[in-house]
């Protein structure tokens, strides 16, 4: 048996056929190809070798792709440390960055001419950068807004979605399917096409200046979230609920005591995904909230520093502050994603949604 295996695994196994004679050149080429795991007329490559070579190529391709995926983030961090205190060459320094700025705040942190410190650009961003929105507006206000817009609607919205999902999956009531399809049909309505009516409505309700427009609609839950949690709940045995019912638990108790803990993976994953969506929600803030109000969220405020295409106060002289703001905006979602990546990725694979 061992012999047989050895023969199979042998890398350069010449297949000599009596009728055909191969030239030395083709024989040599075949040997080389077999070494790289490719079978030819003269040599048959072993499967192990083929897989090994294929793996190496796969790694090279994937590592190259990883570089492409990660490099802009590295660039972002490097640019946020560019020393732009000398405004004459500031634009040039930040644009010519490949790996690290030619004059960085790390290099000039302790020099007397550019007294700023390592986090100089971040300091500008924290202290004066966001006054482009209005004079009272600070970074902390933007952060508070962003937390408010992403935590309140997501937490409340996920619970309302989960309750609707529970009702659709586990309770029999008249008109259940009709209501479900009625709600599902709402997904087909494209957001932008009802944007103007929504804007007029929020305008009438005075929800725009105070930012309620980004909080209240989210608190009613989302249909997609409800749909995915419903799919998850179908996998739970109904006998648990029946047992609880026989023991005298009401539906509210069943929901709080059984459904919420049991469906926690699905609820967490959906909640995290919608948290990320809300955190990055530039469009909602830009369209619904007035440019100079204190209610704008962080991405909107950063976009205002740039001034939509280069007209902003920071675009020409201190773009590094804008980039520092971008880094600040990306870090929380990155940390969250790093902590829960297993949950998020597996949920994405399960549901097939891309957001």
């Amino acid at each position, binding site marked *: 048996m061992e012999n047989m295996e050895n023969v199979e695994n042998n890398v350069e196994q010449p297949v000599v056929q009596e009728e055909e004679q191969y030239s030395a050149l083709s024989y040599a080429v075949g040997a080389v190809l077999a070494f790289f795991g490719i079978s030819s007329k003269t040599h048959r490559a072993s499967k192990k070798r083929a897989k090994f070579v294929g793996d190496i190529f796969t790694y090279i391709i994937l590592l190259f792709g990883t570089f492409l995926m990660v490099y802009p983030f590295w660039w972002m961090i490097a640019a946020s440390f560019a020393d732009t205190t000398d405004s004459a060459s500031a634009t040039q320094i930040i644009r010519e960055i490949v790996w690290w700025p030619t004059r960085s705040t790390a290099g000039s942190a302790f020099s007397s001419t550019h007294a700023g410190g390592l986090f100089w650009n971040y300091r500008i961003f924290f202290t004066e950068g966001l006054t482009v929105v209005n004079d009272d507006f600070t970074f902390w206000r933007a952060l508070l807004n962003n937390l408010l817009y992403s935590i309140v609607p997501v937490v409340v919205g996920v619970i309302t979605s989960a309750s609707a999902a529970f009702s659709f999956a586990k309770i029999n009531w*008249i008109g259940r399917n009709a209501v479900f399809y009625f709600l599902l049909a709402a997904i087909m309505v494209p957001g932008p096409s009802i*944007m103007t*009516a929504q804007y007029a*409505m929020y305008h*009438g309700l005075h929800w725009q200046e105070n930012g309620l427009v980004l909080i209240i609609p989210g*608190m009613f839950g989302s249909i997609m979230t409800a749909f995915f949690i419903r799919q998850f709940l179908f996998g739970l045995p109904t006998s648990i609920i029946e047992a609880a019912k026989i023991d005298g638990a009401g539906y509210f108790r069943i929901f709080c005591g059984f459904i919420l803990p049991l469906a926690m993976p699905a609820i967490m994953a959906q909640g995290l995904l919608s948290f990320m969506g809300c955190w990055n929600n530039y469009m909602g803030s830009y369209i619904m909230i007035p440019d100079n109000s204190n209610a704008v969220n962080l991405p909107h405020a*950063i976009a205002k520093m740039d001034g939509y295409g280069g007209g902003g106060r920071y675009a020409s002289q201190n773009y590094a502050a804008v980039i520092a703001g971008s880094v600040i905006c990306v870090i929380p979602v990155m940390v969250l994603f790093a902590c829960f990546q297993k949950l998020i990725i597996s949920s994405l694979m399960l549901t097939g949604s891309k957001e």
Partner: protein
Amino acid sequence: MEDSIAVNEAVSEEDAAAIEAVPQKKQKKPINQAKLQDNLWGWIFCIPLIVGTVWFVYICLIMAFLLSFTNYNIINGGDMFAYMGKFSEHIHPQGAFYWYKFAFTNLTKTSYPMNELGAYLFNTVFYMIGIPIGMVLSMFFAVCMSRDIKGGNVFRVLYYLPCVASTVSIVYTFKLMFSQQGVMNGILGLKSFDNGGGFQWINLNGTTDLAWNTIIQKTGGTPTSQSAFMNDPYWCQGIFTKLVIIVMSVWKGLGGTIILYIAGLSGVNAATKEAAQIDGANGWKIFWKVTMPDLYPVIFYNIVTSVIGGMQIYMEPTLFIGEQYITSGYVSLIQMNGIKAGKSSQGAAYGMILAVIIFALTMFQFWLDSRNKD
């Protein structure tokens, strides 16, 4: 002990009462209580979602539909619901379909030989070039990742990073990376373009005379002063900005599609694959004849959602270079007219046209799908 006896007695009394009560209640159907509970709680648990959907989607949809026939202006029109209460009085004075006609006939706002709607729609469709590119790339990476290698999950996470990052941050990074002296021009060797100024990716013009002539010279032609193609307004104006936007959106959307395809690939029947391998099919053939047919539903889903999303492109062009007819997507038309200028009715009409276009495109894809299956 006494307590328990008392309880027992109470129970037995209740039982007796129940036994006595049963024959009397028979015609009233005692099961109804549970069903009532089901119905009651079913509705209660659903009510928030129903209210939210009806309020923020359906009422707004009806309002937008009706608005498009009127001449409502948010700045001096007062409350929308009060205005729409007298719908019959407020139909647009120049005919109910005025804004629809306007959308298809006004030629004033662009320098193109087409109307505003056409210009914005052209940009939107142009950005959809990214969809097939992204699909092929992500399929390639997904096949690589679903090989039996160590650390496949790590790659999955790293490729998904751009998806979770904020579009605002990404756009500003790309904007600087594609600037004239930026790293992209360094890689592509375009830093010396335009007499050392560097190639300008992000601008609204077509190529400049100088840039065009350099391209011509490099490809071996003779430089001319003004090329016809260069001045072709909507093919050439801002084309490099559009390309950068396509590159960025492909880069940003890759991870999500890869995960979708990995999920699809793990569902491909392994037995069929092995059978094909034994029959002597090579990897390429197995991929096209075995894997692809199994992946078809995933690919179809991806195309449908990408086209729906692609029709609604808005943030990237706006953040790159602002809103105008040269680069902006269709949604900018709604935003600029309906919200910034306050002409809600015009915006609503554009929105209804967008909804019809998206619906028609989706139906068309489903029709193609059903024809494929026969």
